[in-house]
């Protein structure tokens, strides 16, 4: 009896054994369906070609015998489609290692696949705050960053996308300033083409900053209404009149674009849901974010979580589409032994990045190392060794943490509205300085003032 994790290794073995038969096909899909069972999808032409059809059946038979119960009988386990594109549509797909014509297609019960990467957007910088575990001060750090950027004269747009545990807006807005609606309301109204009814009343300006502006879009409005009934529907895709489908994250992207057009911000800060979650996937992979801040506490729970995520990117061959946008944030760095704590955090982060996202750089070939041919008696390496990699101590590397210090006055988001209203810039700097500096540089780099 095989288990789910054995599907890919076994598929690789079986296809290697039958590589001659597989090579005859234009393409072949190993389709992992919603229940985690495997079918082949083969080109329609091979259905009519008797020898090819027989070959496909032989290979599937060999595979299904080893994969049971994660497979079907031969008569039910092979589907035929006219084109590869059609068969892959709407699902995560990537090639099986070692076979450039064999694709793994993964169909999930959720829309979040974490492997579809929207490239960086060209317009206003979008910065996502994400944590693999909750309760690490992510929303507080976002509020402080928004305040600081606004104090520096920037127009900041803040989105609370922690829909299942909202709270950011209460940190930035006093109760009397909360807008009537929030993101959840728009996502529901949009399903019936009524987004316009709430759009003008879902943004409020914070009174915290005196020099710039913070525009806040909360998860819900001042009156949260039937929040649970609404939340259960936000994930709905929208079916257009012509029968095409718009995913919920595409709808969210449309909302963000409309908000940017209306508010014309200098920067957008997004508070993402924590964990490997549907909303988090939309924030990290679908928004075209320019900078993704990964909050981390030193410990196995944090690094196991990030490792799972990074390995998925590696497996789906999309690591190079996102790794340059990542930055580890050392969350709530303890007061005692700050330096050694951050060093430990850096070392752990480096380990995970090296194993998953950084390129492995092989040493130069021995024959490329030797004396220069011009007889000067100098040694040289006649081999260009390239790859995307960093030293552990490289401050510009994604794994090198920007630290957010623990501070009594910032523990707990609820009190933040009061704290930021009276706090001095120096105190914010001492706690969030490294993060704020990094974010400011990233914003200025993209939008020189």
């Amino acid at each position, binding site marked *: 009896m095989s288990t789910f994790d054995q599907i890919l290794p076994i598929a690789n073995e079986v296809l290697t054994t039958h590589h001659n038969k597989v090579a005859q096909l234009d393409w072949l899909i190993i389709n992992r*369906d919603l229940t985690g069972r495997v079918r082949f999808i083969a080109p329609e032409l091979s259905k009519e070609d008797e020898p090819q059809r027989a070959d496909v059946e032989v290979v599937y038979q060999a595979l299904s015998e080893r994969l049971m119960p994660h497979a079907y009988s031969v008569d039910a386990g092979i589907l035929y489609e006219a084109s590869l594109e059609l068969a892959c549509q709407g699902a995560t797909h990537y090639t099986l290692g070692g076979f450039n014509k064999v694709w793994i297609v993964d169909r999930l019960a959720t829309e979040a696949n974490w492997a579809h990467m929207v490239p960086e957007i060209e317009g206003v910088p979008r910065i996502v705050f994400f944590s693999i575990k909750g309760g690490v001060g992510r929303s507080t750090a976002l509020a402080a960053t928004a305040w600081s950027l606004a104090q520096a004269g920037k127009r900041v747009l803040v989105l609370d996308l922690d829909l299942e545990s909202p709270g950011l807006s209460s940190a930035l807005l006093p109760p009397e300033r909360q807008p009537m609606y929030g993101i959840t309301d728009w996502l529901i109204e949009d399903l019936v083409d009524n987004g316009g009814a709430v759009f003008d009343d879902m943004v409020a300006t914070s009174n915290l900053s005196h020099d710039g502006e913070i525009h806040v879009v909360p998860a819900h409005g001042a009156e949260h209404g039937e929040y649970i009934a609404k939340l259960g529907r936000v994930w709905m895709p929208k079916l257009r009149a012509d029968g095409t489908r718009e995913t919920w994250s595409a709808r969210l992207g449309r909302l963000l674009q409309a908000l940017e057009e209306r508010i014309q911000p200098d920067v957008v800060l997004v508070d993402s849901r924590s964990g490997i979650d549907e909303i988090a996937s939309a924030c990290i992979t679908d928004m075209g974010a320019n900078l993704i801040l990964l909050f981390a506490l030193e410990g196995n729970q944090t690094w196991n979580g990030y490792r799972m995520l990074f390995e998925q990117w590696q497996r789906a061959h999309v690591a190079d589409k996102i790794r340059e946008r990542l930055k580890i944030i050392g969350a709530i760095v303890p007061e005692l032994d700050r330096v050694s704590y951050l060093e430990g955090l850096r070392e752990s982060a480096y380990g995970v990045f090296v194993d998953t996202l950084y390129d492995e750089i092989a040493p130069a070939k021995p024959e490329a190392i030797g004396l220069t041919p011009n007889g000067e008696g100098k040694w040289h390496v006649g081999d260009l060794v390239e790859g995307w990699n960093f030293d552990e101590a490289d401050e510009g590397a994604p794994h090198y943490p920007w630290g957010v210090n623990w501070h009594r006055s910032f523990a707990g988001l609820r009190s933040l509205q009061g704290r930021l209203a009276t706090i001095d810039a120096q105190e914010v700097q001492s706690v969030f300085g490294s993060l704020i500096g990094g974010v400011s540089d990233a914003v200025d780099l993209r939008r020189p003032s």
Partner: protein
Amino acid sequence: MLADFLDAHERHWTDAEGLFAAERFANADHLYGMATECGLKRLMMRFGMTVDEKGNPTKRQDWKHVKDIWARFETYRSGKVEGVDYGLPTPSPFDNCSVDDRYAHQSHFDKVRVQSHQTGARTVRNLVAKAQREGLI
């Protein structure tokens, strides 16, 4: 004989296409309707329709022909997470059908009428193929 809605859906579709190509529109029309009915019934089984030992629906309300099964399908699909992406367009392309059509004279079946039913049957066929890819059936 035991009912096999999936197999019946496929054979009715294949034969309907053959008859349509041969411009035998009346019987093509009948088989597009049958293919649609069988395909939807197979999907309804996945979304909760119960069948007896012979494979026939146990509820009288499910003994419908193509005109009514289009709406009946929604009863089973709604409220199921896995059914979210299996919506049918409205109005149904089979609204102009009747069970009595099978007794009608063939001059009543022109290409345009049959094409709209072919489109409806193809919609269901695509849903059946999608359900197979996703492992729902």
